[in-house]
């Protein structure tokens, strides 16, 4: 695939649609109120190559590609397709030009079947009636050509994330996408699924598709692409052929400084078990069993990583542990004390801290100030209040200290949370939760959507807390994060723990299989 394919006889793709020999974006600018999301960026891609778009969260990758797909109108700049100026005012225009996009957050209608999702918005051969049987047949053909297994008659809500992604790709191919944009396609996949996806992408490139691959994961970019363009704060900081790139050089371009990928992990003497989960069952919002008899034990000074593809019960487990979701069966013990069914305030007092997955919803109150958010749990305690009155002086003193200790970048304590960056909001949540020096910490996706600088910082803080004897449950979909931090790794699949492996013995392949439901013994 590292060799460019040159016109293999015909100018048509296997789907029968015309190729896009070249696509060029010139001087694209996109402003949002108060944000310059994309700042004079040039970007191009050719038939038969993968051009990776690399950058940290918030660098402007999705915005640039949404401009190409017609979801946003650029403030400046132009787009050329096969050398011709192209007007793309809506996704319908982009589709007509042969551009397809697999979005970071899938664009599927869960209540509809695969075939219905694919047929959506297309002319039917029996207009005005649907021709789902023909669509289904064509899906099967496409699936065969590109190695994308799906059942056209299955309702989408029943599909696993990996399958949903295949539906998204088929949807684009079905519409004749010659240029396919994949926005962080690997974020939701197991390592094996990533391999399968790469297989499909190789095939597409060989057939003459042009691919744009968005990621913030360096090793993936190195593995799949021919060229890399790096974005930082909306600006293009460089473009190089992948064979000249290294992990270090790309990281430097992406972050703007040297990045260490290593943490100080002191040897810690593990203590007695602080968190014990016994046969825990809980229901999902859809009222199905999301947790089906989870057993785990975490000792003082230990980080237990919980790996798994999203939607396998991680969120329900975190919520059940923190009293936000009733357990239908089983017990939770903190240092031997049964706390099942206790409310969050009580659990806080017993020394549990919680870093929620949805920090903007469950972690902070976005319309409150930095200071108000820092004392959300403790505002009623001394010294922050006396009888019924808040004591602004005491609060300010404490907040100054936390902002400094946790390196939170904010203009002032009175700044509203919603104007901080994701990384700083997460540091604030961390500051609030860790400042109480918890016995048990539940950290759900603590670095999702957070920049590398803040990620490093958060990781180091979690390790410091480990050294202080906290028992940490680290729930993450990022295997790299789990492998870097956890002492033991548990894998959850469909609400059950598939197995627990020690840090030294875990391999990516083995964890990947477990994430797909294969038990540790069989793996």
């Amino acid at each position, binding site marked *: 695939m590292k060799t460019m394919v040159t016109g293999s006889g015909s100018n048509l793709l296997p789907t029968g649609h015309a190729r896009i020999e070249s696509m060029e974006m010139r001087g694209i600018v996109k402003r949002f109120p108060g944000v310059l999301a994309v700042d004079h960026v040039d970007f191009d891609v050719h038939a038969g190559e993968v051009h990776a778009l690399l950058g940290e969260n918030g660098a402007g990758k999705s915005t640039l590609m949404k401009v190409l797909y017609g979801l946003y109108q650029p403030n400046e700049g132009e787009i050329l397709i096969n050398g011709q100026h192209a007007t793309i005012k809506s*996704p319908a225009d982009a589709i007509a030009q042969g551009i397809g996009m697999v979005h970071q957050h899938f664009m599927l209608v869960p209540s509809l079947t695969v075939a219905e999702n694919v047929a959506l918005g297309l002319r039917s051969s029996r207009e005005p009636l649907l021709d789902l049987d023909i669509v289904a047949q064509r899906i099967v053909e496409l699936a065969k050509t590109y190695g994308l297994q799906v059942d056209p008659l299955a309702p989408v809500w029943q599909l696993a994330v990996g399958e949903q992604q295949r539906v998204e790709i088929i949807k684009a191919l079905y519409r004749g996408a010659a240029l396919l944009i994949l926005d962080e396609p690997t974020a939701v996949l197991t390592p094996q699924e990533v391999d399968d996806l790469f297989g499909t992408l190789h095939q597409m490139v060989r057939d003459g598709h042009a691919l744009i691959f968005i990621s913030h994961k360096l090793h993936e970019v190195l593995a799949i692409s021919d060229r890399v363009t790096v974005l930082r704060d909306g600006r293009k900081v460089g473009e190089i052929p992948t064979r000249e790139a290294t992990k270090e050089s790309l990281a430097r371009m992406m972050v703007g400084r040297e990045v260490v990928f290593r943490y100080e992990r002191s040897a810690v003497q593990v203590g007695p078990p602080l968190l014990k989960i016994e046969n825990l069952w809980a229901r999902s919002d859809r009222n199905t069993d999301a947790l089906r008899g989870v057993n785990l034990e975490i000792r003082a000074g230990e980080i237990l990583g919980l790996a798994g593809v999203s939607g396998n019960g991680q969120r329900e487990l975190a919520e059940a542990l923190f009293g936000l979701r009733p357990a239908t069966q089983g017990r939770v013990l903190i240092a031997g004390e049964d706390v099942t069914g206790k409310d969050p305030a009580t659990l806080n007092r017993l020394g549990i801290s919680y870093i929620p997955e949805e920090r903007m919803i469950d972690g902070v109150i976005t319309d409150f100030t930095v200071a108000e958010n820092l004392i959300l749990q403790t505002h009623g305690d001394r010294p922050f209040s006396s009888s019924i009155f808040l004591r602004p002086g005491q609060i300010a003193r404490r907040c100054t200290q936390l902002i400094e200790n946790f390196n939170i970048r904010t203009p002032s304590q009175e700044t509203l949370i919603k104007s901080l960056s994701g990384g700083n909001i997460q540091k604030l949540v961390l500051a609030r939760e860790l400042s109480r020096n918890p016995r048990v910490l539940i950290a759900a996706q603590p670095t999702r959507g957070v920049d590398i600088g803040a990620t490093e910082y958060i990781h180091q803080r979690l390790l410091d807390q480990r050294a202080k004897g906290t028992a940490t449950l680290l729930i993450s979909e990022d295997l790299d994060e789990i492998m870097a931090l956890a002492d033991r790794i548990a894998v959850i699949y469909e609400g059950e723990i598939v197995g627990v492996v020690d840090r030294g013995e875990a391999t990516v392949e083995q964890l990947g299989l477990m994430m797909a439901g294969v038990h540790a013994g069989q793996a």
Partner: protein
Amino acid sequence: MIDQLLDSSVLIGIAASGIRLATPYLYAAIGETFGQRSGVLNLGVEGIMLMGAFSGFWAVYHTGSLLAGVLIALLAGLLMGLGTAFINVTLKAEQGISGIGIYLFGLGLSDLLFQQSFDSVVTVNGFPRIHVPVLSRIPVLGEIFFQHNLLVYIAFGLVPVAWFVLNRTTLGLKIRAVGQNPQAADAMGISVARVRYFTVILGAMLAAIAGASLSIALLNVFQQNMTAGQGFIAVALVYFGSWRPFGVMAGALLFSTVNALQLWVRTKGIDIPAEYASMAPYLLTILALVLASQRVDQPAALTKPFERGE
């Protein structure tokens, strides 16, 4: 009273009037189903029904033509629908509030126009009863099902048509997708606004016919606020029927049959105060809604305006 009720002619009469009384609910609720399936809650159905009732009545009074009545009512519905769609889709108004405004507008305007146009209470010759050949002579069933006016038959015919359009056509697929995940529909090149304008206007036109079915078929008069809450009941019936045309029909029939029963009880002048009897259908609605509160099939984007790129 019970033995009176069990008399077969009384039962047949109640069943037949249950079918007849279901007509306005069916038009309004089937129309509202389309809107809600695409994600728009139109609480103003009642006001649009009143406008349809007045304009249909007005046209029949002046022209003597029932067709003119239906066409003018459709036109009134189209205009009200256009306004409703503009407010809810283009201006992205809060649908729970804007609906109340549309209702009050229709209530006030229909009354004003009525007072300007007529000095006294008048009646028109509305849709006559049609005795369907052969079928209407079947004992019992014939009397219940096949001796109604044309608008009744059309209303029931609409139910399978609505089901078919929603489930078997490309348009129906677009409507369902827009109501469940407008972002996804938009990304597939569908104009969310255009689909919603279509369903809201269609819903309003059917609501107008619902109103006209009262003023030029069932009662053949117009009065201020003559719909008396039926438009709101129609909105509730859509929830009751889980956004499915046949479910909506079942709800409409249940409701109208209880209503017919209640009317019969009242004409008998039996010991229950009239107010209690007339409350019964509404209590039933509330009860049914509470019991049917599963909402599994609720369009996920219901009442949510669409904004690209969120």
